[in-house]
């Protein structure tokens, strides 16, 4: 098995004066200090960044970090996998350690995207869907409309996801949006794509997060090491007709992760999942088996996903409120879970948590996702 021995993260938000590399250095140095290892111990670096090439003409940025850190000659992989860039870098780093290629690996996700006129994100300028007006909020809004039609999910239930997110983020010092919002305030905000008002859509953000992974042998001397029970990466099914409500890829990835981890949904104490939009989180409750299919709206409305509830979800504030610097998110989710499992989360601590799950998705294609990652961590 592989363990996580260090974490580092910077506040997410607008860092207009900071570069991708500068942010990633802060997170990396923090992770090295947390793990109490010298930089020479790092045997490989998996660096995630999604938009550097498109926005700034930067490429192969990972080596810019390792050069600035004086990390010489080690293998560096630059990872782009849409919103799962960070969690895919983590998946690859774990695989490298499992393969015996290195003992200790650095995983970093860093994104700079607060630029003027960024607009709405899409899944490829030359795709027909994009040319016909598909933007990511619309894809999820289409799922929401169908979920409302099939199961009676209400705008108030979806807004509850955002209200919960803001309430959780008010307890997280690195979150982007920390002011509480009521359901009424959320519903009164500007409409982005029916039924999502602005607070129901994840914001753009700058930020970076880092993890240090190590083999069990290396981690044995660490009393704060957290074990990785499993990490899976899947792609979409791309079948027709696409099912907007029963998201086959989501269910498949969840079942694969549970099977490989040898656990059931009822053993998960807390979750970080890909709440790009409020309804996304509702769908993920269902796919992860936290509630029955179609009942996600009632699950969140009853408080089951809140801190203190049956299975707290996105206690960090999630993508909606912690912010979503694309390639940093997958890493940040795991930083949060490690902090929780170490019982170092302060005011937002989930009491007695032992087993945690991080779920991330990235990209849209043919009404499905491009990628999905899930990892299960144990104290």
């Amino acid at each position, binding site marked *: 098995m592989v363990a996580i021995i260090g974490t580092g993260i910077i506040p997410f938000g607008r860092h207009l004066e900071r570069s991708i590399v500068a942010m990633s250095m802060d997170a990396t140095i923090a992770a090295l200090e947390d793990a109490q290892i010298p930089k020479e111990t790092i045997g490989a670096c998996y660096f995630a960044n999604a938009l550097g090439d498109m926005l700034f003409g930067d490429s192969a940025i990972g080596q810019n970090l390792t050069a600035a850190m004086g990390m010489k000659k080690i293998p560096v992989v630059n990872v782009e996998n849409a919103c799962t860039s960070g969690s895919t870098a983590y998946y690859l780093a774990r695989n490298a350690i499992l393969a015996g290629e290195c003992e200790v690996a650095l995983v970093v996700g860093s994104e700079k995207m607060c630029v003027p006129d960024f607009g709405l994100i899409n899944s490829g300028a030359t795709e027909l869907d994009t040319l016909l*007006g*598909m933007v990511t909020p619309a894809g999820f*809004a*289409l799922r929401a*409309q169908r979920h409302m039609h099939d199961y009676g999910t209400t705008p108030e239930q979806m807004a509850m996801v955002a209200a919960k997110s803001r309430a959780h983020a008010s307890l997280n010092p690195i979150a982007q949006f920390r002011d509480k919002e009521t359901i009424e305030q959320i519903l009164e905000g500007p409409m982005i794509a029916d039924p999502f008002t602005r607070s129901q859509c994840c914001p753009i953000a700058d930020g970076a997060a880092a993890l240090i992974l190590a083999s069990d042998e290396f981690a044995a001397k660490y009393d704060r090491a957290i074990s990785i029970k499993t990490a899976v990466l899947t792609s979409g099914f791309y079948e*027709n007709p696409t099912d907007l409500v029963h998201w086959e890829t989501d269910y498949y990835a969840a079942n694969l992760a549970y099977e490989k981890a040898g656990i059931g949904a009822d053993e998960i104490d807390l979750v970080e999942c890909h709440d790009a939009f409020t309804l996304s989180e509702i769908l993920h409750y269902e796919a992860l088996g936290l509630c029955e299919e179609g009942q996600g709206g009632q699950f969140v409305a009853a408080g089951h996903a809140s801190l203190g509830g049956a299975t707290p979800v996105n206690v960090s504030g999630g993508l909606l409120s912690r912010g979503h610097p694309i390639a940093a998110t997958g890493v940040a989710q795991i930083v949060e879970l490690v902090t929780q499992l170490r019982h170092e989360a302060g005011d937002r601590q989930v009491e007695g948590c032992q087993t945690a799950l991080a779920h991330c998705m990235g990209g849209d294609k043919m009404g499905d996702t491009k990628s999905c990652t899930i990892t299960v961590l144990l104290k």
Partner: protein
Amino acid sequence: MNELNDMPLVYDDILTSGPEVHFQGSHCPSCEAYQFPSQDICPACLGETEKADMGKRATIHSVTTIRTKAPLGLPSPYSVAYVDMEDVPFRMFALMDPKEAGNYYIGQKVELSVGPLGVNNDNQACLRPYFSPRASSRT
């Protein structure tokens, strides 16, 4: 129609050449799967596909309206949908006629048109396919 003939279509090879506006996709004779846009090789069985007339009538499966700044010179607001084609078993992503943005509903019968709408990636005005309420659905 001459100026429309000169205006590029937003994406190549998605309409049939007949008198009515129909989508053209591909169909795999080996495994019966449809693809849109067309693919030369069937993703299901890797067999060679044939051109397929996907028709022009569809039913809305889900629909939303984008109310923030629209991309690609599209009008604001504009609606998009997943529609189920009536002539072939295929659910496709669709741009809806912006004149009726916000008025569409699940289960509505719609019909394909093509017309000048927005710009392409080269910032040229172009033709786009879009669905409008079918005349009979207004009764």
